[in-house]
């Protein structure tokens, strides 16, 4: 018998209770009240700010100009983007407006030395946002590499108000859950941080030191 078989045999030997499937927490029976839809945007922004993120409330028309101003304030000279249409438009816009920021879209395997040592900021696009915890859902894949939202010191994530959901439970019960799951699905709720030295909070532990959330409002 293999270890696997021996472990499973021992587990099957045990007396266990019989429990039906735990009913999913949805709508009225949820014990943790989710914020009302009208409050989702405020809740998301507040939670993100509480977690040291900067929220850029903007819209479809002006977001690229608003973001460019932030990039200039952060002295970004090299921006790395995923390989999606939004990134293509951003790249085009920045190239037309500024000579100081080199914007690159990732199209081939990422070189570690480049992303670790030369890139100042990474631009990602979220597929959903969770109001109750201030979280952004990132589905990585060919268009959205894993390291873009992890390695550069400045992490920028774009999300639309229409993609807001109440919380993680609501998201997990919704049709937003990708099937099959992407190889890496992330909830990001702030810049990297640690309190491992005497409970003192410090940002930029290993990943991004700052997070800018570009929120495209419906209005």
């Amino acid at each position, binding site marked *: 018998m*293999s*270890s696997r078989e*021996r*472990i499973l045999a*021992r*587990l099957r*030997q*045990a*007396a266990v*209770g*019989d*429990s*039906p499937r*735990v009913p999913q*927490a949805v709508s009225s029976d949820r014990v*943790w*009240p989710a914020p009302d839809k009208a409050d989702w945007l405020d809740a998301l922004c507040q*939670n993100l700010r509480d*977690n040291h993120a900067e929220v850029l409330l903007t819209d479809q028309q002006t977001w690229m100009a608003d973001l460019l101003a932030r990039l200039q304030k952060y002295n970004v000279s090299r921006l790395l983007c995923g*390989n999606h249409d939004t990134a293509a438009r951003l790249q085009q816009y920045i190239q037309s407006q500024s000579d100081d920021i080199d914007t690159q879209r*990732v*199209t*081939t*395997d990422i070189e*570690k*030395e480049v992303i*670790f040592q030369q890139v100042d900021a990474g631009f990602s696009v979220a597929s959903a946002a969770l109001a*109750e*915890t*201030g*979280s952004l859902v990132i589905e990585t*894949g*060919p268009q959205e*590499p*894993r*390291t873009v939202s*992890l390695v550069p010191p400045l992490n920028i994530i774009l999300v639309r108000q229409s993609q807001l959901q109440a*919380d*993680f439970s609501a998201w*997990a019960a919704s049709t937003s859950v990708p099937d*099959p*799951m992407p*190889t*890496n*699905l*992330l*909830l990001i*709720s*702030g810049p*990297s*941080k*640690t309190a*491992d*030295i*005497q*409970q003192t909070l410090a940002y*930029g*532990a*290993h*990943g991004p030191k700052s997070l800018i959330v570009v929120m495209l409002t419906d209005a």
Partner: protein
Amino acid sequence: MAESMIKLRDELDAEQQDFSDMQQQHFKVRARMALENDALRNSFRGASDFLMAKRASVFPDDEALQALRSRGEAIRQHSLNHLPDLLETLEKNLTANGIRVHWAETADEACALIHGILADNNARTVVKGKSMVSEEIELNHYLQEKGIECLESDMGEYLVQLAGETPSHIIMPAIHKNKEQIARLMHGRAETADGQGVPYTEDVDELIGNARAILREKFMNADAGISGVNMAVANTGTLCLVENEGNGRMTTTVPKLHIAVTGIEKVVEDLADVPELLTLLTRSATGQKISTYFNMISGPKKNDELDGPEQVHLVLVDNGRSRIFNHPVLQPTLQCIRCGACMNHCPVYARVGGHAYGSTYPGPIGQVVTPQIGGLDNNGDMLSACSLNGACGEACPVRIPLPALIRELRHEANHPQFINAADADLTRVKQRGAKRSLGESIIWKGWALAHRYPPLYQMMSRSIAIGRGLLSGSLGNRLLAPWTDSRTAPKAAAQSLHQMVKKRGVASQPGQHKEHEQ
């Protein structure tokens, strides 16, 4: 090298030696040493108060908290009730996703498996995300002996490894150190890739910045990453990791090879089970609504993807868990989601700290897990470090009845029938009866007898009253020494309560003494 640096390094070496000497001591000696260390007590008191307040601040509504705890308990119990099936489903779906699954019965087997995977891939340098199971199986030590460099990357774990110590808390591993101690440690021992030291600083941002620079270099160049798992989702074949620092993501994303290691109890059935366990975990552990990162891994890099590990492996570790699973009372041990709230709320842990327990898992959950994994003979003493005040049971987000489990283990430890590692009977704790002593059991037998038969009870109380001078004398002192060494000796009254009320004219009710007599 500057003279001051030589001196600092000598001091750090001496401290490390003190630490390993302390770890060789008996539990009671370690506890005493911890109690006498003011700096240590300040660290733990401060951390416990801080973490308790943080947790309370994110559970403002007690009714909602209690309801959520019940759901957490139900989810975990459901998972355990279907554990073998869920493990098979998990394996099937992980395999379909391209994640290779391995099973290990023992710590040694797990270490050998992991080493085998590393060796197959010629991996010489490893970065590690936080994993208590890897501490439990002493993986670093094993790999080090095989010539593989294994670097802890969680900030707290990194500092603890740099000091040559072990974690003192499962969530905040370096909780026992203050920032002055960490400043000395970093200055004395930390080295950048090109062999440079780091300047002395007590500024936390600078300390973290220095460690960040060192560790990012390591992430970039490591051959493999080893991480733990907080939850494994059977239906989707997904490994979930909870973290704030980003080192978990680095470990599981940047190197070509990722090996995850976890206990077999960490599986849940469905994605729908995850949100509530996650919120219970982060709120109970550090008082956060959610951690900075929740990392869900469902496969290695696909051909058209531009980054991520080329191989992902999961090592499922039993190491005694299937025995815990078979115990009729102790099975809820496996409900644990490793938040650390029980230790944060434990008045004993707050005073003696994590190292006194001498085990990977300290505090109440450690007192329950460790003797079951390692046996009662070697690990049964820590069961006495509990006043049964119940704080841990009330804090536990998945309602593990920790005080009841500690009591059950005390019973098992003192069971009249000694069983040594009896594989035949899985429903018993390893080394049951190891702590039983003849003297103690005779005293308890007599005590029980005296409380059953009133004449015997009166005789006992009278002789204590008569002999009370003797008890406080030198003979008594010697007899009671094991108790009175660290406690005030009880003073017997000259008259028993019975005698006093009798004297005041309160008569015994007729027949009262007859009640219990046959």
